């Protein structure tokens, strides 16, 4: 079983040779709705609409691949995001698209019976199942900061992710350590790839992730039969390939030099740029402005608050303070911006040299030309 990042050589999830049932209609989803979904998906994947039939074809062939969903140092925000997913809905996902054999927040079984279900998957479907991980993995002190069923998260992750076809790290915690890894990282929290380097991991960061991007990833896989291209942080380019700032609806105001100066002011009412209120859109790669949230209702900058950079590695440290454009200069207090320190430095230098100049003026140097001729 090979687990290359592009997924080319696997013998895992869908088998294109399966008989092509018109399962979607049988499941009560009209052809029209289904095609609408496929078109939406090709948009989410940044593909031309002509791809919709290809997606439709691929989805028609699917036999519910097995998925297990692990929660470690998480807040269940990504699970909740999944519950808000609209195409497909989570009900369709559970009943039709995937076989979600383990997910603590929704599964009926508990305790030993739940653990048995997980053990069955890792044993019987080695190398074929998908894992979704939500939450970071604590590495300090032998991993005692997160245990499930008496086992540590890192122990479970090594077994379950290590034997999977691929692992999708949903949310910034699972991808990069997220909030538990924020300084001083009390529990030594890390993302999945760092905890289980041998696993094939695709990161879908965000806090939480946008569930449409998860659907798009699954659909991408089913359509192209391989995992999508990723950036240097392991994020699919179709969702993280462009900066917020370069797709933001407030961008014309940025360029025009029109900024919100105070919450609720004229600029805030008229949708001016939130740059001065600390918006991190210029440093954040995510498709929020176009994909939006909750059935495309809105997104942070659209609603009136700056982006906090939630899809960037370690954003809890690199994007804070959230209401300042730049991070604090390490080692100085929260009131010391780079400009204050820099201006202080410049003034101090000027003062020091003024002093130097006075002293120089008062002394008589050797090696000075005796005559006062100028060349």
């Amino acid at each position, binding site marked *: 079983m090979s687990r290359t990042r592009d997924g080319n050589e696997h013998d895992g999830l869908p088998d294109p040779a399966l008989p092509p049932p018109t399962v979607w209609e049988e499941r009560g989803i009209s052809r029209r709705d289904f095609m609408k979904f496929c078109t939406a998906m090709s948009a989410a994947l940044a593909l031309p609409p002509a791809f919709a039939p290809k997606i439709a074809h691929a989805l028609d062939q699917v036999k519910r691949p097995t998925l297990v969903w692990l929660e470690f*140092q*998480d*807040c*269940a*925000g*990504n699970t*909740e*995001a999944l*519950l*808000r*997913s609209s195409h497909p*809905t989570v*009900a369709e996902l*559970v*009943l039709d698209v995937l076989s979600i*054999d383990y*997910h*603590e*927040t*929704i599964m*009926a*079984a*508990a*305790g030993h*019976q739940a653990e048995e*279900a997980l053990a069955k998957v890792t044993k019987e479907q080695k190398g074929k199942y998908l894992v979704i991980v939500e939450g970071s993995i604590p590495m300090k002190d032998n*991993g005692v*900061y997160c*245990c*499930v*069923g*008496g086992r540590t998260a890192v*122990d479970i992750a090594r077994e379950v992710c290590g034997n999977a076809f691929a692992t999708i790290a949903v949310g910034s915690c699972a991808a990069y350590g997220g*909030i*538990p890894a*924020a*300084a001083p990282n*009390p*529990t030594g929290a890390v993302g999945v790839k760092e905890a289980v380097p041998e696993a094939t991991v695709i990161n879908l960061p965000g806090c*939480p992730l946008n569930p449409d991007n998860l659907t798009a990833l699954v659909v991408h896989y089913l359509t192209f039969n391989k995992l999508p291209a990723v950036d240097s942080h392991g994020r699919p380019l179709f969702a993280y390939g462009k900066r917020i700032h370069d797709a933001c609806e407030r961008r014309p105001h940025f360029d025009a030099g029109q900024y919100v100066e105070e*919450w*609720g002011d004229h600029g805030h*009412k*008229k*949708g001016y740029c939130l740059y001065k209120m600390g918006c991190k859109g210029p440093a954040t790669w995510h498709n929020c402005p176009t994909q939006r*949230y*909750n*059935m495309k*209702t*809105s997104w942070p900058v659209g*609603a*009136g*608050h700056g982006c*906090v950079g939630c899809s960037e590695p370690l954003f*809890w440290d690199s994007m*804070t*303070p*959230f*209401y300042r454009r730049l991070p604090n200069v390490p080692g100085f207090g*929260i009131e010391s911006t780079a400009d204050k320190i820099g201006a202080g430095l410049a003034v101090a230098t000027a003062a020091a040299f003024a002093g130097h100049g006075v002293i120089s003026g008062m002394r008589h140097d050797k090696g000075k030309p005796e005559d006062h001729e100028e060349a």
Partner: protein
Amino acid sequence: MAKIAIDPITRIEGHLRIEAEISGGRVADAWSSSTMFRGIERILQGRDPRDAWVFTQRFCGVCTTVHAIASIRCVENALNITIPQNAEIIRNIIIGIQNVQDHVIHFYHLHALDWVDITSALKADPAKTASLSASISEWPLNSPTYFKGVQGKLKAFVETGRLGPFANAYWGHPAYRLPPEANLMAVAHYLEALEWQKEIIRIHAILGSKNPHPQTFIVGGMAIALDPDSQSALNMDKIAEIRSLLKKTRDFVEKVYIPDLLAVAAFYKDWAAIGGGVGNYLAYGDFPMDNSGKPEKLWMPRGIILNRDLSKVHPVDDKKIAEYVDHSWYEYSAGAGKGVHPWDGETNHKYTGPRPPYEFLDTNGKYSWVKAPRYADQPMEVGPLSRLLVAYGAGHKEVKQAVDGVLAKLGVGPEALFSTLGRTAARGIETLLLAAELPKWLDQLTANIVGGDLHIHNSERWDPKDWPKEASGFGLHEAPRGALGHWIRIRDQKILNYQAIVPSTWNASPRDAAGTRGPYEAALIDTPIADQNKPLEILRTIHSFDPCLACAVH
């Protein structure tokens, strides 16, 4: 005497483990433990207090919003900031819809399978289900064809042989008592509720940009501008959309959730005598009806009920709150055996449990990441039930009416409230009240806008330059799961100390220094257990609290 461990407890938020001693078919003793710790209180130290809400909101993605609210409130309290009316109303709407949505998800997706055997739904007669449904509610989706369709879907799913998340459960357990028709109806509504919740929570997206983890909170108000003449602000179009979603909200609650709740409860009345617990109930109250910050202006009142005595509502004094860590994996610099008020709280984690993998925890020693909060050294249950009991005791008109109505329908007295069933019923009653109240708050907002008040943020103390050198404050809130408090100390514009005591910290608490059990532990005592390998009954009582362990530990 046999000791069992249920880990993971599923269909909750987070990592909860229950250990219990079973004797004579009943729970003799129980221990509640959370097995996950992140240390966010530590992570907050030294940061900008205005950033805190973004961090604390990540305590939990289920009751998302609640820690944002408590956090901005505690910073506003410390800095003495009065927020504009409009911001208060918008917060109330956000809080209200959060409660409603969270409660419905809890009932259908986290709790229902404790009472509903979905496999039995396959045996139901869709026509009978339809008439059952029509007899209890005027909800339009009640035709035999509709239920036949649902049953067909379920059948097709079961026939694949791959039950996914429904595999390996306690189906067929003798404690399941609903007839197949009721089970089929519940399955249909399980699916409908899934659809409904993601629709109505768009109110958060409109007011807060997204859900989970909305992003328009700010210290001093809200970061969503009001302007009927702008397409980039909250305008009448968006308010109209919220209004229609609120209608949808109320419809479902009144026509589906409440009738289902009553129908299911009627089959499980014996659970009105099981799962009572500590008998003390604490509510901080919420929904400020103006921006004065006065407790008496809260729509849901603040108070304490002691020893199940509804005749007296005691006042709340936050100074009487202290957290113990004698059975939790922390150390206090003042040593063991002492409770600490959250302003002086410490989060010095120190694991002393068994080295994983383990079979059992050392329940005589420290056994949980949850601290043990106590009010005047008493354990307190918090949640919808506590809120209703306090309001009921205080003579709150709407609450009294609603509670009495439900009790009458079920043919039980108020003492039935102190139970597993009482907790589950209280959640429903509260949802009903909030769904009715929400449109009124939206009306207030609209009236303000029409009157030309577009004020949304108080910027006087936005700039840390204008802050005192030292300040401390607290923020209280009623989260879906109960009384929530955040305490902050600020020095030199930075967070010196930050402590949260969360509803599930109260409820999931382990024993304190005196060895007194926490509410989950106490509620499990004497629970009948038909089959200790399938402890369905334990799940029922634990789920009735709607546990959230990411919240509890943070």
